[in-house]
């Protein structure tokens, strides 16, 4: 039981290489660069999110699924942010 798959195979290996490069960049930035904490945190989070999005889009196939599915998939994220941001304001 498949849904429409009239697309070429996703570039799995290319994505793998990008993930590898980003991982090395992250480790490098964290251990070997002298970056102020804020920019370090921001840069690392951006790279991590980039990797996560790649995995979701290509390995979990979201790029090729109906739009309603990825809308469903991201629905809990606002809740996560609300919880964390609201409680951080306590401290």
């Amino acid at each position: 039981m498949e849904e429409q798959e009239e697309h070429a195979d996703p570039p799995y290996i290319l994505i793998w290489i990008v993930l590898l490069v980003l991982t090395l960049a992250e480790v490098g930035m964290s251990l070997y660069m002298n970056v102020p904490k804020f920019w370090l945190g921001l840069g690392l989070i951006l790279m991590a999110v980039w990797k996560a999005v790649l995995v979701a889009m290509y390995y979990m196939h979201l790029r090729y699924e109906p739009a309603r599915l990825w809308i469903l998939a991201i629905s809990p994220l606002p809740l996560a942010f609300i919880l964390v941001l609201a409680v951080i304001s306590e401290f």
Partner: protein
Amino acid sequence: MSTTTAMETHTGTAEHHELSFIRKYIFSTDHKMIAKQFLFGGLMFLALGGALAVMIRWQLGFPGRPLPMPLRILFPDTMAPGGIILPEFYNSLVTMHATFMVFFALMPLMAGVFGNLLIPLQIGAEDMAFPRINMASFWIMPVAGFIMLASFFVEGGAAGAGWTSYAPLSTSGEWTGVYMGQILWLVSLIILGFSSILGALNYVSTVINMRAPGMTWFRIPLATWSIFITAWLLLLAIPILTGGLLLLLFDQTIGTAFFRPEGSGEPLLWQHIFWFFGHPEVYILIVPAMGFVSEVIACRSRKPIFGYHSMVVAMVSIGFLGWVVWGHHMFQSGMNPLLGMTFVVTTVVIAVPSAIKTFNWMGTLWRGNIHFDTPLLHAVAFVALFIIGGLSGIFMASAPVDIYIHDTYFIVAHLHYVLVGGSLFGIFAGITFWYPKMFGRMMNEGLGKVHFALSFLFYNMAFFPMHNLGVQGMMRRIYDPNQYEFLQGLQPLNTFISISIFCFAATQILFAFNFLWSLRAGKVAGNNPWKSNTLLWTTPSPPPHGNFPEMPTVYRGPYEYSHPDREEDYWPQDEPPATTGSGGETVTTPTPELVPGG
């Protein structure tokens, strides 16, 4: 290429192999049997929760007096020596009363029973999307329930830190005297969470993917809508609780300090985690009842529901807004006042969709051809009592007012108005309305009306005065208010409330008797004794395995009652617009709504 699985057409039950007793009644994957299992379990725990309430009220109504015989001999000296309830046991009573009621009675009755019973039948499906996961979802509950019950019998007794289990009271047994019991409480709820999550994912998937042709989103009956929204709340809120419970369990057992101040832990974090779950939880406990009430009021008034679309939008709004009001449970916690102010605003806003629903129910009743049968009576009582509960909520929404009434009996009054006046009467409406479909027989009307009237009377006699108690300063969870001189004058009121509760509890025997007696001796119900429009009522009572002989087609919404073009005052959803093909088969010309993609 097809996008979905076509349902195999069942040509009746003759084709199905006969299941063994165990596969049919114990380990069943049929959603209707699972609904009955949840009903049996939920009602048992409701009775237990009620018994615990009776004990609480005994202490408050007749403080320090020994329990009457035969209750006196049931309790060991660690709980009630000589029949006199100990303060530590009282703490366990208030904790466990709420725990059993919320987690083992209301949630199974709301989501477990009616989610399972209504969804496939109302959307025209043969069963849930994942029947075996459904079965697992049920069986987790008795396991968790057993552990929770067992906690009464361990040394130190059952959990005594409130159903909210605030740290640091709950992280150590130093102050409650409860050690193992608190751990078992956590373990039980962690396990129970899986039941909710599995059930929720089943409901969400089934409603999205298994609606019969023509059942567009805005033709779904409000009962199914309400459970669909509730399922989303369960799916996303319960895991947060589970995470928090696990961390609290580690604090209690292996000595971490997530919430323990002595290790730089943050007790306030526990409150935030708990209430981030806890607020959606209360909507989980009321939204399904709103759905049942909509069905009953429309059907028994013989009128379309007033504002069907706004009913849906209101429930969805409640679902969304319910995530951003949790701080109103914490106004007095020492939280950041600016954050608190934000919660005041969001809490006041969330009253609006509930109010819209209330006006819509009233608009439905207005000038309706109302049949005052038992389901309708319970449904109207829901509306009235929910209004009272909602109004007290407006007071509590204001943080400055809450300074005065937080943790008093005003809060207890509010929560019981929405959970008993609201949820429980909603459940009674649901049970009395759908009993014929579940069991093939009608419940006794006369007895039902007596049960309703006495319940309504005793309920209000018991809980309305609690608003008064709270404003006069009586605090929650207190064993002996008479230790404070300023509260001593409230004893007569407390005694009055206790007696009202005892009468309320005794009245429920009528319901139990009606329920059991009607199973065998009730009037045989046909397919559609209430003349309702939903697909559920097109099936036999009770429906066979597979529900529908063939997949129904839906032509209209569920609330076409008293339509001017019709002779009958109802118009079932699956009745075709009157065309028959030459070969005798029903030929349906696709209307735009029937074409997939919509």
